[in-house]
Every structure is written in structure tokens, then in C-alpha cells.
């Protein structure tokens, strides 16, 4: 039985909230907060309902023809569900965070409006059932994030916004060309109809290879694959919640998710393997991982360091899917969730430091663990997770990546993992050392750059609560990875579906 309305409702919760927010006056922050939060909670509930229904074996799909040969098609599968769940969860957390973060700052209406649109597009990307629909929301995401990136409105932000657009619009164009070409070749392919391309036979392989590269180029911009990553560190000028969302779910992840879709649901992993493109993917991912880490090491400011860390980490997903075998798949998919949780935590923390103490540079963090223990603890958890240490979520990824690498016969990937772990440690542990073991203003040496006492606790509760929640989640999904409904479980489910048809 097909129930088309639930995915539509889920899309609508954030899509329709945007005009509502635009209509509310700028000063009605209370009403806006209520609207935002209730929509976010509603979406989470609906997604939970969807997950439940999906496990019951219900089929949710919705579609109509837009033009001949291209349909708007929403469909729910395990992979999309994972991504939708992540975005719904993080939307709630980030909304709470943003309400606290943007207190008393101008243009909040605009911010929250586009913020909702941004999430709507992300959920759309998650639920998209074919490449056309995916493209639709993918481009919408670019548009919705631009006002968020330039939100501050100063020169640097505008510059970053311009660069962001240059990259993403060009990428979107390339993607559009690729998708159109695919349509011209075989028509509309719903995600999961892998046999369509495989049936074309070997004479179509050169064409398919070219198309794959074109599509990869288009998606790689958002996924920040080196050398298409230039926009990401610059986009750091955006407010912290935006960076958090941008890095954790929205933009970067949309690109990675697109690559996952491309490899598994459009081409099918066996076809990609047959075309010999997995090696290329893994090499790109490796270069990105190492380059991102090295660049992160040379950053002196907190957010750019985190940004380069994202460049590096998102490629774990690509690396995972490039390892031919169920473990690699699981690694890639599960990292989609894990990286989101951990990175969002780190960005929340960076935002907390900036808001409460005015800290932007790493060397200003000396002794901040004393002043802001909760935040610093959260940061520690996130950082350890990024290095890939148990029990934080990152370990699970690394474990499966390693297993997948061996399974795929690419043992050299393990060396990459080791190097990446060391590099991650090299740029995160000094921060932790500064936080906890150095003496700073909290010990009576010097002053914080710009201290504001935002709340009864170490900082405003609006900021602290989401941080704590995502921290807890990042630990729990790692520690209790074996539980049903955990990301690992979902990823395993997807992978087994993929490999045992």
C-alpha cells in the first residue's frame, strides 16, 4: 500500500514554515521560536513515524510528471531515511542553538526563513526518488544557503558568498548537464533501478564512464573533494549554527549523499566496479583526506581548522563507498551520520567559545576548559571521535573502513587510515591540551578576548543544551552501535539490501 502523504508532510513541515517565518515581524522572536521549534519537533515525529512505517514494510512514494521523461518523485528507502533522520534531528538541535546564538542580532527573520528552506531542501534530497528530483533540491539548497553564508553582510562574508556561489553553481550546472545526458541516454531512472544502466551492455561503457565523471564533478563540489573544496573554508564566516549545519548535514553531506546515490542507486556498485571507477574514487578520497588534514594542521583559527577537518572527514564517506564490499558500504553510510553528529558538536563548541568568550584563534583557548567545562568536554568528545577513538562514533567508521579495505583487497587504505588518525590527533590534541592543561585567563593569566556572561551556566542554556545533546548522541551511537535502529544497524540494513538482492 502506498501512502504518498507522509513524505510530503515531512517536506512541508520545513518548506511551509519558511513563508510563515517571513510573514512574522522581525520583533516577534517568541512566536518565531515557537513556530520553528514546533515544526522541528513535528518533523522529527513524522520522520520517526516514517521509520516505523518503513520497518513495517510500508511503501511511501509520491510522484507526478513534470515534463515528458522527467518526473518529480519522492520515495522512501533506508538510505534516504537515514539522511532524513539525521537532518531532522540536527535541525531541531541547531534550531535551538540558533535561537540562542542569534539572540539580539539583526535579520533573524531572514536567517530562520532560509534556515528552514535549507532543511527542506536537505530533506528533499534525502527523500528524492530520482536524479531529477535530487537535482531540484540540490540546487534549491545552494540558493537557500547563500543568504545564510552572507548573513553577516560584511565584506569577508560577501566575498565568501561569491566564492561559494561560483563553486556551487558551476557544480550544479555540471551536474545538470550530467543528469540531462543520462536522461537523454536512458530516460528517467528511479533510484534503485540499477539494472537500467547495467543492461546497456559494454558498448555503452565509455559513455557511462564519462557521464559518471561529469556527475562526480558536479557532486564533488558540494562534497568538497580536493581540488573542489575551496569554498568550504571560506564559508566559515557564516554564523556558527550555519557552519554547523553546512558541515554536518546540509551542503557537504548533500554532495556526499549524492555520490552515494550515484554509485549505489543509479549506476549500481557492480557497474561502477566494472567500469574501474572505484579505484579513482578511492584515490580522490585518499588525497582529500590527507590534504584536508595537512591543511587543517596549518590553520591558526578554530573554525577554519574544523572546516579543513570536514574536507578530510567527508571523504571517509567517499572512501567507504569506493571499497567494493559490504563493509566499505556500511562504513561510508554510517559515517554519513556519525560525521554529522560529531562535526555539529564541534561547531557548536566553536560557536560557544566565540559567543561566550570571543575566542576565534586556537591560541586563545588556553585554559578554557576551566571556564567552560561542559563545552570543552563536548569538544573533547567530538575531537576524539574525529580521530577515530572509541567509544565515540568515529571509531565505528574507521573500523568498518579498515574491514572494508581488507575485504576489497586494498590494504593500502589502512595506511591512509593510520596516517589520517595521526594527523587528526596532531591537530586536535593540541587543542585539547590547551583546553585542559594550559593555564589561561581562567587561572588568572590575561583576559578573554571578549567575555560575555550569557547565562547562569557557563553560557546560555540555548547554546549548551544542543551541544550536550549532540555530544551524548555521538557517544551513544558509537557505544551502542550494536542496537537496533542505531545508524550502524540502518547502514547494515542498507548494505545487506544492496548486496543481497
Amino acid at each position: 500500500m502506498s501512502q504518498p502523504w507522509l513524505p510530503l508532510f515531512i517536506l512541508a513541515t520545513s518548506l511551509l514554515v519558511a513563508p510563515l517565518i517571513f510573514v512574522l515581524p522581525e520583533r516577534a522572536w517568541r512566536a518565531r521560536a515557537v513556530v520553528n521549534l514546533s515544526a522541528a519537533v513535528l518533523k522529527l515525529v513524522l520522520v520517526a513515524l516514517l521509520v516505523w512505517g518503513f520497518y513495517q514494510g510500508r511503501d511511501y512514494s509520491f510522484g507526478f510528471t513534470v515534463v515528458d521523461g522527467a518526473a518529480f518523485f519522492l520515495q522512501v528507502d533506508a538510505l534516504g531515511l537515514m539522511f532524513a533522520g539525521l537532518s531532522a534531528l540536527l535541525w531541531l538541535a541547531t534550531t535551538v542553538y540558533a535561537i540562542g546564538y542569534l539572540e539580539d542580532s539583526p535579520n533573524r527573520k531572514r536567517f530562520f526563513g532560509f534556515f528552514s528552506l535549507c532543511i527542506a531542501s536537505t530533506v528533499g534530497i534525502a527523500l528524492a526518488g530520482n536524479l531529477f528530483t535530487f537535482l531540484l533540491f540540490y540546487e534549491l539548497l545552494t540558493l537557500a544557503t547563500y543568504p545564510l553564508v552572507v548573513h553577516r553582510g560584511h565584506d569577508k562574508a560577501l566575498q565568501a558568498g561569491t566564492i561559494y556561489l561560483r563553486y556551487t553553481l558551476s557544480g550544479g550546472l555540471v551536474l545538470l548537464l550530467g543528469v540531462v545526458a543520462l536522461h537523454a541516454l536512458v530516460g528517467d531512472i528511479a533510484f534503485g533501478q540499477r539494472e537500467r544502466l547495467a543492461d546497456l551492455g559494454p558498448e555503452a561503457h565509455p559513455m557511462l564512464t564519462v557521464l559518471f565523471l561529469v556527475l562526480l564533478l558536479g557532486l564533488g563540489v558540494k562534497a568538497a573533494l580536493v581540488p573542489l573544496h575551496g569554498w568550504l573554508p571560506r564559508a566559515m564566516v557564516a554564523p556558527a549554527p550555519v557552519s554547523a549545519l553546512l558541515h554536518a548535514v546540509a551542503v557537504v553531506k548533500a554532495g556526499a549523499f549524492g555520490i552515494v546515490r550515484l554509485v549505489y542507486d543509479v549506476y549500481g556498485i557492480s557497474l561502477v566496479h566494472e567500469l574501474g571507477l572505484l579505484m579513482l574514487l578511492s584515490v580522490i578520497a585518499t588525497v582529500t583526506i590527507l590534504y584536508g588534514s595537512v591543511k587543517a594542521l596549518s590553520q591558526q583559527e578554530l573554525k577554519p581548522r574544523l572546516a579543513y577537518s570536514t574536507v578530510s572527514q567527508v571523504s571517509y564517506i567517499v572512501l567507504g563507498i569506493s571499497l567494493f564490499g559490504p563493509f566499505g558500504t556500511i562504513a561510508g553510510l554510517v559515517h554519513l551520520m556519525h560525521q554529522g553528529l560529531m562535526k555539529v558538536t564541534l561547531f557548536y563548541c566553536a560557536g560557544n567559545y566565540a559567543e561566550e568568550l570571543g575566542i576565534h584563534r586556537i591560541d586563545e583557548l588556553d585554559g578554557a576548559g576551566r571556564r567552560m567545562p561542559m563545552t570543552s568536554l563536548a569538544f573533547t568528545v567530538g575531537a576524539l571521535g574525529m580521530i577515530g577513538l572509541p567509544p565515540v562514533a568515529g571509531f565505528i567508521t574507521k573500523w568498518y573502513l579498515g574491514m572494508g579495505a581488507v575485504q576489497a583487497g586494498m590494504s593500502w587504505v589502512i595506511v591512509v587510515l593510520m596516517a589520517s588518525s595521526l594527523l587528526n590527533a596532531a591537530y586536535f590534541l593540541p587543542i585539547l591540551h590547551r583546553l585542559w592543561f594550559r593555564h589561561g585567563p581562567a587561572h588568572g593569566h590575561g583576559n578573554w578576548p571578549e567575555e560575555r556572561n550569557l547565562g547562569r551556566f557557563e553560557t546560555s542554556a540555548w547554546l549548551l543544551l544542543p551541544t550536550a545533546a549532540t555530544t551524548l548522541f555521538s557517544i551513544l551511537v558509537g557505544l551502542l552501535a550494536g542496537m537496533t535502529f542505531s545508524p550502524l544497524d540502518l547502514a547494515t540494513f542498507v548494505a545487506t539490501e544492496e548486496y543481497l538482492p
Partner: protein
Amino acid sequence: MSLLLPIAVLWPLLVLLRSGLVQAMEQGGMRRHEPRRELLDGWWASAPLPALILALWPGELSFALESWLLGGLWQYDAARRPWLMFGALLWFLAGCYARGYLAEEQRCAEAGDESAFRRLLGFSLFWPLTLAGNLLLILAEDIPSFYLGFITMTLAAYGLVVHTGNHDARRGGLAYIVMALCGEALILGGLLWSAGSAEALTLSELRAAIAEAEQGLWMATLLWLGFGVKAGVIVFHVWLPLAHPVAPTPASAVLSGVMVKAGVLGWLYTLPLGDAEAGLARLGEAIIAAGLAGAFVAALLGVVQRHPKAVLAYSSVSQLGMLASLVGVGLVTPGLWPALLAPVTLFAGHHGMTKGALFLGVGISEHPPRLPAWLIVTLLALPALSLGGALTSGLIAKGFIKEVLKEGGHSTLVSWLSVAAVGSTLLVARALWRQWHRRGEPALHWRSPMLLAWLFAVLAAAGVPLWLPIGEPGVPWPPLKELPGLLWPAGLGVILAGLVLLTAKAGKGEWEKFSRLPAGDLWWVYLVLARWAAAGLTTVGGALQLGSHRVRASLVVKERRARAWLDDLTHYERVFTHLAVPLMIGVALLLLLGFWLG
């Protein structure tokens, strides 16, 4: 009863949580005017007690947890029992000792000294965390839990090493953490590779996997090196002499007594020792060679150290080198391993307890109790001689090992080990000598927990063969006729030490020249290399940065030029305005041409 397993691991964490909460309440509440609560109270010291109780449990336990990581499986069996027992015991003793050792800081903290309070708080939090990690790694059977325990212990111990926060402590901490992380990376690589090759989730599967895998040699090498960092294999040993002297004495004791044993435990857990199919004999030979080299080199380096704890650290390196060579035997002669496991365990337990007692003794010699000096010296010398293999547990352990090795046909190794024992004796003699030099004024009350813990440790160390449950056949007492063979290295060591002492007395200045060698030997080489590498990287990075800046700048210039060019181009718009009609006719002609062409 299998709940005892999680309780043993979780109890330290609960203790940690309690300390954290107490601290948070003190910070949050407006209770600053009241005296601070005691941080290292009885509850805190009780952290290893459940583990100790578990170690006394006679049966075997297993505890599975589906949803834990990738499927948790914790086991408590005969092989783990001795490790858990001496580990938990030493942790407990060191904990009690710490309450006395840090009493001064405690007083300062209660009086309102912020920095003392911070240090103490850190100690009170990192101690149980390290303990929990240590216990978990002993009890874990699934690889993720094992790795979790190992990494938790490693990272948390950093907090213990840098406790004092001074320059030396930071340097020691740096050496510790850098080496530890290199080790972690190697371990991770080895674990992933070997586990991936057979989709293994438990340690026993892992061993089987390595034995079967084609590249088993490389996996085993990675793992051996990775754990070797912790176990102080020569070349990787540099952190020990740097970290031990700066850590608080109880922390040094557990570091050297238990935590470095985690490396040995790692070898035992992951290497396919005793598996005839494994074909890792060449690795085994390399291990034996490296172990013996470590034993000798560390002895040579150690005797010229000045800080007693540094000397003891080198002694640990030396002893662990011997232990490593025994592990190597397990790979070279797999058939011998079942027999060798018991003496190895005994040796590890003996070394753990004895080294613990020795380290605790350093604190005692710095703050001697009000007891007769001869008694203290005797008590200090007892574990020292034991370590040299002359008395009690050391004698028995060495005898046991020799017996097994001789039966297995490794007489050469026995001789080498005996020679190495001379070095060990020299080292402990040097340590005692340095302790004597640095002895403090007797002040400690004889009922202080510090003293009691030490006394208990000394006694327990002496009696390790009596209580350590190493397995069924039990510890064979060396027959009397073997005694000379066993005792000569210690005797030779003592004599040599005496000679050196006399020489030193004769010409003081000459001796000092030798003592210039700083602790951590190779570390300084590494540091220089690292500096060079860093400088090189910085240069390269700077050049790249400059290059990319240049490229970017030139791109910006080009873009500006392009824009200017475009702006210029807009002037041509006038042409279109003026020539509209001719252009129209031109278009018509063009189209006509097109039609004509087809």
C-alpha cells in the same frame, strides 16, 4: 555473577563521576567559604576493589552485550586472572599510597590554593579513568572493547604524567603522548588489517586470523611494534625515562608496574603465540634480538642516570626487553609456548609488583618514615634484589624461566638473560644509590597510608609466586643445586656495583662526566630529527603557501584585468547603436548565405 565484570569496570567510572559531580557542585553552589571537600577520599581509593574481588573469584565468567560497540564480549578466565590480580592489587596499593603522597597538596587545596586544587582534581579524575581503561583491556575479549580500554588508559594516563604541570612534566607528557599515539596508529592498523582479513571480532579469532592470513607477518609486525611502544621495546622506549620521573610516584608505580604490562598483554592477546601454523619464526627471532638489545642497552643507559625514577624506568625497559625475548620464543618455537606462558606471566607479575614497590619506595626515601634506617634500607633493598633475581619472587621466576627454556633448547638465550640480569642488578643498585643521595628528613608517621601501602607492596612483591594464580602445575621451586647458576648474575652485579661505588668515591669528578647523558636518550635525537623535519615541512609548506598565494594573487589580477577588459568591451556597444541598419542588412545577407548553403 557475570555482572561482576561490568561492575569491576564501571566502578572506577562511578568514582570518577562522583569526583566530577562533587567538583561541579562546589563550582556551581556558593559554598566557597566552606572548606573544600576531600577529593582523594576512601571512596576514591576503593576504585579497584571490585576488580580485586573479581580477581579472587575462582571460576570463569563471561559477559556478552549485544548492543555494545560492535558486540561486546568480556571474559574472565584463567589466563586473565593473574594479570587482573596483580594489576588490581597494585592499583589499589598505589591508590592508598597516593592518599598519603598527595596529602600535602590536599591540605593546600583545602586551604584554598586554587592551582593545587586543580592539580588534585585532575589526578582524582584521571586516576580512575586510567584504571577503568586498564581493567577493560584486561577483561575484554572483543577487539573494540580491548582497543577502547587500551586507548582510554593511554590517553587518561597523560593527565597523570603531566600532573605537576611544570616544564619537565610537559616534556615528559609530550614524549609520552607522541610515542603513545604512534603506537596507537600502529595498533589500529594492525587490528584493522588482521581483523578485516577474517572479519574477526574477538581476540581469539584475531589470533587465528593472523596465523592464517597471507600477510600475517606484516600484521603481526604492526601489532608487535604498536604494543611495543607501550612495552618499551628499544627505540620506542624513550618515553619511559622521560615520563616516569615527572609523574607523581604512585602514578609512576602503576605506569611501570601495570600499564607497560598492557603492552605485553597486547602481545599475548593478539600475536598467534604457540600456533605452529603461523610461520612467524622470523619475526620471533627479530623480537628476541630486539628484546635482548633492549635489555642490555637500557642497562647501560640506565646506570648513568641521576634521577632514581629514571634509573628505574630504564630498568623497566631492560626487564621488558627480557620479557619481549620470551614472547619471541613463543613465535620461534610455538611448541614451547604452553609451557612458557606460566613463567612469562609469573615474570610479568613479579616485575609489576616489584617495580611498583620500588617506585613507591622512591617516595618513601624522599619522605622517610620515623623508623630505623636499617629497616627502611632493608625494605628498599628487598624488592631491588628480587628484581636482580637474587631473592624471593625474582629468584623463583627466573628459575622457572630457565628451566622451561632449557627444556626447550634455548640455552643460549638463557645465558644472555643471565648476563642481562647483571645489568638489572646494577640498575637497581644505582637506583638505590641515587635514592640514598636524595633521601629526605624522616617525618612520616608509621601509620600513614603511604607507608602501609608500601610495606604491603614490598611484601606482596616478595610473595608473588605464592599468590599469583598462574595455572595448574603451579610454580616449581628451584632446586638447591640450581641456585648458584641463578644467583651468580645478581652476585656479580652486586660486586660490580660495589666496585663502581668505590671508584666513584675515589674520583668524584670522573663519575659526573658519565652522568651527563640525559634521560630519554634517543628522544633528543628524535626531537632534533622532528625539528629538522618540521623546519623542512615549514619551508616546503611556506613555499607552497607562497606559490598558492602567488597563483591566487595572479588570478585576482587576471580577474581584475578581465573585468577591466569587459568594461572596455562595453564601449563597443556604441557600434551596435550606430550601425543598427547596416547590421540588419548584414544579418539578412548572412541568413541568405545560410539558405543558399542548405
